């Protein structure tokens, strides 16, 4: 029951993206959220045979477009120009979200403000009274995919743990998160517990001390 420390330093976003990419099964259909999760695509090779979905109406999305490839009619959910892959297809917004909401995506990777030990996710709204709410596709993604992975820094800018006993910010989805990938470790959320799979640049005991949330050592 000792938790391996897999790295002598906290992982960079790129290194973490590689860890996430390794955990995506070959042949999977995946949606990568805007921001950090997008990096995961850099570590998916043709041999992984992973198909990317973008909720604005495409399956088989390729990488970011450059130079002459840029086509304003071909963008991802972050409104970044992308390219096609062979075997891609287009569909309208309702069909695209039906694909997500109907449970057909194997996995989505999202950023987060908070995740709690019940797998609840908060990633759309800080809850500040003057904030203008804007949700986009976050709730559909969190609820629709077979598995929802979160990818984030473990602590907020002011040093607070984003893994919490119970989310205090407005929820995006209930009980939807199964794994949390952070710069300091990988966490499996199951049965109301946060199980630490591995740590990066910090030992398990030290991590337990730093965080104000109950952790369980994993295999």
């Amino acid at each position, binding site marked *: 029951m000792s938790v391996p420390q897999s790295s002598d330093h906290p992982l960079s976003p790129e290194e973490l993206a590689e860890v996430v990419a390794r955990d995506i099964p070959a042949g999977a259909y995946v949606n990568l959220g*805007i921001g950090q999760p997008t990096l995961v695509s850099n570590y998916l090779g043709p041999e992984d045979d992973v198909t990317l979905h973008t909720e604005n109406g495409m399956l088989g999305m390729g990488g970011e477009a450059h130079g002459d490839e840029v086509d304003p009619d071909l963008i991802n959910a972050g409104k970044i120009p992308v390219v096609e892959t062979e075997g891609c297809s287009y569909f309208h917004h309702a069909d695209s979200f039906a694909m997500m909401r109907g449970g057909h995506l194997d996995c989505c990777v999202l950023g987060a403000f908070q995740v709690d030990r019940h797998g609840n996710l908060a990633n759309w709204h800080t809850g500040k009274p003057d904030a203008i709410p*804007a949700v986009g596709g976050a709730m559909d993604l969190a609820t629709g995919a077979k598995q929802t992975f979160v990818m984030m820094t473990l602590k907020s800018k002011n040093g607070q743990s984003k893994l919490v006993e119970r989310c205090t910010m407005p929820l995006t989805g209930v009980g939807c998160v199964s794994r949390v990938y952070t710069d300091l470790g990988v966490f499996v959320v199951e049965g109301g517990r946060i199980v630490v799979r591995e740590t990066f640049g910090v030992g398990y005991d030290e991590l337990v001390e730093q965080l104000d949330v109950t952790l369980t050592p994993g295999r």
Partner: protein
Amino acid sequence: MLTIAETAAAAVAPVHDGACVMIGGFGVAGQPVELIDALIDNGATDLTVVSNNAGNGDVGLATLIQLGRVRKIICSFPRQSDSWHFDEKYRAGQIELEVVPQGNLAERIRAAGAGIGAFFTPTGYGTPLAEGKEVRKLDGRHQVLEYSIHADFSLTKALRADRVGNLVYRKTARNFGPVMAAAATHSIVQVDEVVERGALDPEAVVTPGIYVDTVVRVDHPRQQDSREEGAA
């Protein structure tokens, strides 16, 4: 029966005060820029707008909002780095906002076109956006009752129309176009090109002409770069 309008102004002429107007597009892709500009010139006010965003910069929907012509907006992602006109009106209490998860938005629009009054779906359950809504456990999951969204008019963009109004789109510019055309009593579509009847492959038509009321050809459509960031 299809009308092929000579100008964008003529195409949007029927839009009246108090109308509910759907506006297609996701980012720059599929945004009916010339129809929105024509709607600005048209003068109709007290509008309810259904759109994924609430406008960017000082153009298009943002201008319509700035001019105080939009009473209410139903959208998934109003707040962006350059949505200052919306932000200002919203903070001043001068515009009503209904935020809808993007998939619920698309499905509610689809429902209106498909004769579905309401449906149960898991998205949003347990979140502030489902507060006060009816919940039922179906297929082992909590699901929220969501109602269809009809519109009086839709403004969308397609690549090509034939003479009976069949439409094809281009890449991710398809987005909300097909469902909005079907959900509006009067659908208005700008296209790059109008082709003869029979020139579109019947297997590849995306929006059958029955959903299209007015088509207008816009020769060199602009793409209004909205410089959005971190927005879904």
